[in-house]
């Protein structure tokens, strides 16, 4: 089913929208969340949360790129879950609160970014456009999809050492780029 048709199902409040989303993007969501959580049960939970958030977000939001929209929600939920688990282990309640606040922003606003975040995001977008296609692919696969360097090397049919070196250089370039833009890390 076309993405636009699935979105229409959401707008019609047709529960088949969830089924169709799962059929088309279920494994895609699993890949993203499992790369972050490395736990099938948590990954499954994250996927269900993703559908729930989609149901609550559409409408009113009408995503331009449905696949990227789902991926972004799944990733954020997975990172949240990851942080929660690690914060619990460390006993850091303040981290849980911060993550809950972010969760709230995501669910209530069609533009969930704070101003400063938007500036950083714009910088990141500008930075990614300066990269070669190959470097950009590695960077996004590593830090967005959370692929391992081995997985990236396999995807690109190159040696892992090349991936590691390229990513290291890309991180250096990002640090310089952000410093040049006046953004401290």
């Amino acid at each position, binding site marked *: 089913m076309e993405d636009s048709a699935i979105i229409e199902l959401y707008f019609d409040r047709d529960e088949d929208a969830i089924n169709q989303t799962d059929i088309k993007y279920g494994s*895609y969501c699993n890949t993203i969340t499992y790369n972050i959580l490395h736990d099938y049960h948590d990954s499954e939970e994250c996927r269900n949360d993703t559908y729930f958030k989609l149901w609550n977000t559409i409408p009113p939001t009408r995503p*331009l*790129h449905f*696949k*990227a*929209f789902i*991926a*972004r929600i799944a*990733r*954020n939920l997975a*990172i949240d879950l990851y*942080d929660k688990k690690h914060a619990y282990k460390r006993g850091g309640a303040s981290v849980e609160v911060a993550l809950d606040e*972010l969760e709230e922003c995501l669910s209530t606003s069609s533009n969930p*970014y704070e101003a400063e*975040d938007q500036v*950083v*995001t714009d910088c*990141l*977008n500008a930075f*990614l456009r300066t990269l070669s*296609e*190959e470097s*950009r*692919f590695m960077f*996004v*696969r590593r*830090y*967005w*999809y959370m692929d391992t360097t081995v997985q990236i090397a396999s*995807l*690109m*049919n190159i040696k892992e050492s090349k991936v590691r070196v390229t990513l290291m250089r890309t991180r250096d370039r990002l640090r310089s780029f952000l410093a040049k833009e006046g*953004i*401290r*890390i």
Partner: protein
Amino acid sequence: MSSKRLLRLIGNIDDEFILNAAEYRPTKVRKLHTGLVISIVVSVACIAILISGVIKYVDYARNYHPSYEMHPHGIKSESIIFSDDYFGTESETEIIPPWTSVDFISDIDIELRIDSINDSSIDVSYIVDDDRYTDDKLYTFDNCFRLVYNNKEDLIKSTHADPESKTFLTSGSEIKFTIDISDENSPLKPGNYTLYGYVFNENGDYNFLKAEFTVPDDGIYP
């Protein structure tokens, strides 16, 4: 900004990057690019070969002057073309045998003689001394020759036979002509040279005569 926050903000990058990384397969693209490059190289090579063939054909057609007046025996008329391509080193082994087989003047006393050589010209004579050829049966063409360096391996100069310049050779006649070398070949470099001349009988059969000379290392002509 913490690394955790940066990681989270990376999650907000433009959709295009997310989708490209999900759908883009560098390996496939690289293979595609490699295939594309190979296809382009092969295509260019084919086109080059085709153009080369066309150029050779055009050049051949341009230099092709069949003259059945000179060579009534059909296919032999092709051999009258004294173009550089025709006498190229590669085809020479194929071309020479039928020439040598036409040995109609082997028993005729006819000489191709080099009279003099200088930086700009070579004076040449055909000298016939055979009573059987008192009629207009033996002929050649003006400036019809082939000059090679180092035992046929390096063509210095040759000309095309001009049907309009037929000159008959009879007993006692001495036909003189001058080969102009006042061009890029002047002065002739030291080494051994062979000059081939061509003589035809009334049937259009032909054979070549040859005269050899050497330009010494000091460049002084003999």
